[in-house]
């Protein structure tokens, strides 16, 4: 992406707060914090309008480190609280900061329903595949067999893939980023903010203390080129250091091909369509994983649909404009009343 000069009213740092940031040194959350501040600055969002709502977990401390309005709530419930905030004041730019435990375990119900309703909120889903704040238990995204403090013999359960789960719940916007790439995060966060509806951004985040390098193969300097497929709407799905590898649809399956091998040309490579209402291909993209595939990053799905808050307010506005009552007094005096003189 070209670097453009943007006139910003506030510098990224000015979106920060006076509170000392208390994540562990080296935690992936730091990168996300600066990317979010940059995003707000570049989009010129008034500081008082950006509202950060979180649940419980390391990442849920996020609101304290922003100088905006913020609400650090209870475990799993940020979606419910953010929903009320957005309905009450649809002009706010509402962001949720939540982890894999917060949104996919204890808050799983709220997550799928927020997605289904498509309320205009941005969810920063910090996925480090571990419980950090409680010091190292497996989470619903920990890979099967993972040895943790609460699974010394390895877990015996299948993890969620947040992308599959979101699309299964009819998500209109699902994106994935890595915490090591601030530029990528800013590009994607901006799209999430500009998208009208519930925007899920899964952040592959590193917990340096309890699950170090769990996304290492995707983010590592040497390996990332072959393991990151950064998707942009309308662009071919190419990756690799030379951008000579790509994704092709073969029958009903995706496959990795190399340009110039076996007669493969760019014409064979899939062009990403994030806006397609049909999510079949996008769903397949959420599933790509090591070792056979690179991991799909960027906006995997970004389709337009009516948002919950717009629909709710449109219905209410309509009722308000066409009511047979001018005030509550009219209601109270309507229908079956009787007078005592």
């Amino acid at each position, binding site marked *: 992406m070209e670097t453009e000069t943007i006139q910003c009213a506030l510098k990224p740092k000015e979106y920060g*707060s006076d*509170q000392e940031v208390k994540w562990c040194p080296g935690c992936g959350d730091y990168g996300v914090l600066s990317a979010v501040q940059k995003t707000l600055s570049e989009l010129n969002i*008034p*500081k*008082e*309008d950006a*509202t950060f*709502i979180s649940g*419980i977990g390391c990442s849920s401390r996020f*609101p*304290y480190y*922003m*100088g*905006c*309005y*913020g*609400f*650090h*709530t*209870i475990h799993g*419930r940020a*979606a*419910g*609280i*953010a*929903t*009320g*905030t*957005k*309905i*009450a*004041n649809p*002009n*706010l730019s509402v962001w949720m900061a939540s982890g894999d435990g917060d949104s996919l375990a204890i808050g799983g*119900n*709220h997550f799928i*329903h927020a997605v289904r309703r498509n309320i205009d909120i941005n969810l920063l889903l910090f996925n480090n595949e571990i419980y950090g704040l409680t010091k190292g238990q497996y989470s619903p995204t920990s890979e099967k067999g993972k040895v943790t403090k609460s699974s010394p013999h390895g877990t015996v359960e299948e993890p969620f893939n947040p992308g599959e789960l979101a699309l299964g719940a009819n998500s209109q916007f699902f994106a994935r980023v890595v915490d090591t790439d601030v530029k990528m995060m800013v590009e994607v966060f901006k799209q999430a903010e500009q998208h009208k509806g519930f925007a899920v951004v899964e952040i592959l985040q590193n917990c340096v203390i309890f699950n170090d390098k769990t996304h290492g193969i995707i983010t590592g300097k040497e390996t990332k080129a072959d393991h990151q497929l950064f998707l942009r709407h309308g662009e071919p799905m190419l990756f690799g250091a030379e951008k000579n590898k790509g994704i092709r649809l073969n029958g009903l399956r995706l496959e990795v091909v190399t340009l110039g091998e076996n007669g493969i040309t760019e014409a064979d490579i899939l062009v990403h369509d994030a806006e397609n209402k049909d999510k079949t291909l996008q769903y397949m993209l959420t599933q790509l994983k090591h070792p056979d595939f690179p991991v799909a990053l960027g906006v995997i799905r970004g389709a337009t649909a009516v948002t919950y808050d717009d629909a*709710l307010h449109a*219905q*209410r506005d309509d*009722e*308000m404009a*066409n*009511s047979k*009552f001018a*005030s*509550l*007094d009219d*209601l*109270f*005096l309507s*229908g*079956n*009343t*009787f*007078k*005592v*003189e």
Partner: protein
Amino acid sequence: MKTTLDKVVIKFAGDSGDGMQLAGTLFTDTTANLGNQIATFPDYPSEIRAPQGTVAGVSGFQVHFGTAGVHSIGDAPDVLIAMNPAALKANLINLKSKCTIIVDGDSFSKKTIEKAGFETNPLEDGSLGDYQVIEAPVTSLTKTSIADLGLDNKSVIRCKNMFALGMVFWLFNEPLEQTIDFFNQKFGKKPLIAQANITVLKTGHNFAETIEAFTTSYVVPPAKKAPGTYRNITGNESTAWGLMAAAKKANRDLFLGTYPITPATDILHELTKHKWSGVKIFQAEDEIAGVCSAIGASFAGDLAVTTTSGPGMALKTEAIGLAIMAELPLVIVNVQRGGPSTGLPTKTEQSDLSQALFGRNGDSPAVVIAASSPASCFDWAFEACRIAVEHMTPVILLTESYIANGAEPWKVKLLDELKEICPNTCNNVEEWAPYKRNAETLARKWVTPGTPGYEHRIGGLEKEDETGNVSYMPLNHEKMIQLRDEKVAKVAVDIPLQRVKGKDANKLLVIGWGGQFGILFGAVNEMQQDGKNIAFTHFNYINPLPQNTKQVFEKFERIIVCELNNGQFANYLQAQFPEFKFERYNKMQGLPFQIKELKEQFNQLLED
């Protein structure tokens, strides 16, 4: 011959498909219009699809009306309308002696009698000897009277309830016009159905007039009421209206975040009709999201409410703790039902009091208030909002199935007659800090996202005094616990003193709270008229208690707390006022008190 009565209890009972709720409601509407005092209660079967003709499937509607002294739905019916043997069976356990029973004679067959659980036909075996039984061929006369309209059998049978209603109107010398108007309006597009109902109504009326069975008809003269406009209203409706009125007076949008649960759902049904007034409704995915959305809306500046019943309340407790910590206004309406667990979903109880007072982790005080009667739910919902907004605290409003589904006339209050509600806002950023408090109320300021210059963060972690920053400091935590406690305690300064009915008495003080007001008041009132040394005080403000509570208790030799639970309010009072002995009268049957049983109990205490 016409006999004048001062009050009467009528119960319409039949199979759940027999239209008893409609018959009862139409009777109530006409009676209310005639100016009687009135109280009603629908008694639904617990199972939506209980088998036809069984006692479990009986649906009832009780109306108590009169010239004076109608404080409750009445202990037991003077007139029972039983549309089938099961309806008779279900109500035989609770009838006044000399009760008039109108039965549909056509509904008594060997099969239906057995299904209802009678061994022999009660109309023939002499077991109803104490009562005046009027056997009317309701089904057959309904059929013949509208045979020429060409309706299908189901539609014909559905009119049966109007035959019974017609008879009751004759019995109490009430006019048919309002009911006729109702059908003409409701079935304007189906004139045949309207005509059928009206014909059957008149047939029932004529039948009662013609047969010799009724030796007399009755007249219940209108009550002396304060002048004004009245309307009949249920507790759930008036709760909804009180919330809407409070939002207008606070100049905030009303937000309801909720999840359906019996018996609170009618508040949602009512509010959702009134989006025109600016209400925002969010039907959440569960109880937790319901309360959380309300907290989020409150954070953003709406007057936020969540409605529920006991089991839902249990799910909301963590979030209510958050609202206590965040010191945000929030109204939680708990329409109580029988517990624990799923308990008795359609029956009344007052057993969520301890839950409201104590059901949270940590030292987490919330304001708790309770409504007295169907119409008063309006005032208490309004008051809950006022306290929440002016004192920046969650307020739990307890109502109960008995008053939520029950109805009585409400003297309409117009917006101009209501107090202003003043949100505790801030317009001087120099003087502002997130947890800086009003010196009198200790309420912090309510500043909402979108307001430039006041950006701040709140949350569930302990707050530093004034700044609201996260703090784990030992002394700060202790101070904040005390501040939150004091803030709620200080609401006592802002509420009326506790009143006593029967100031000259000194022997027995009867204490009640919440929705059993009418019955308790009625019982004590009757005993006072008999010259008994008894007084009554009723609590609506539970936490904090009115400031003069102790002085009220001091005068009496004996104190008895009457409640529909195993002694929760008594325990609460006992803990606060160990110097008094609180005796208990507890009822846990899913039913309201009865005046008769209360008087027996009180008389015994007076004699001991």
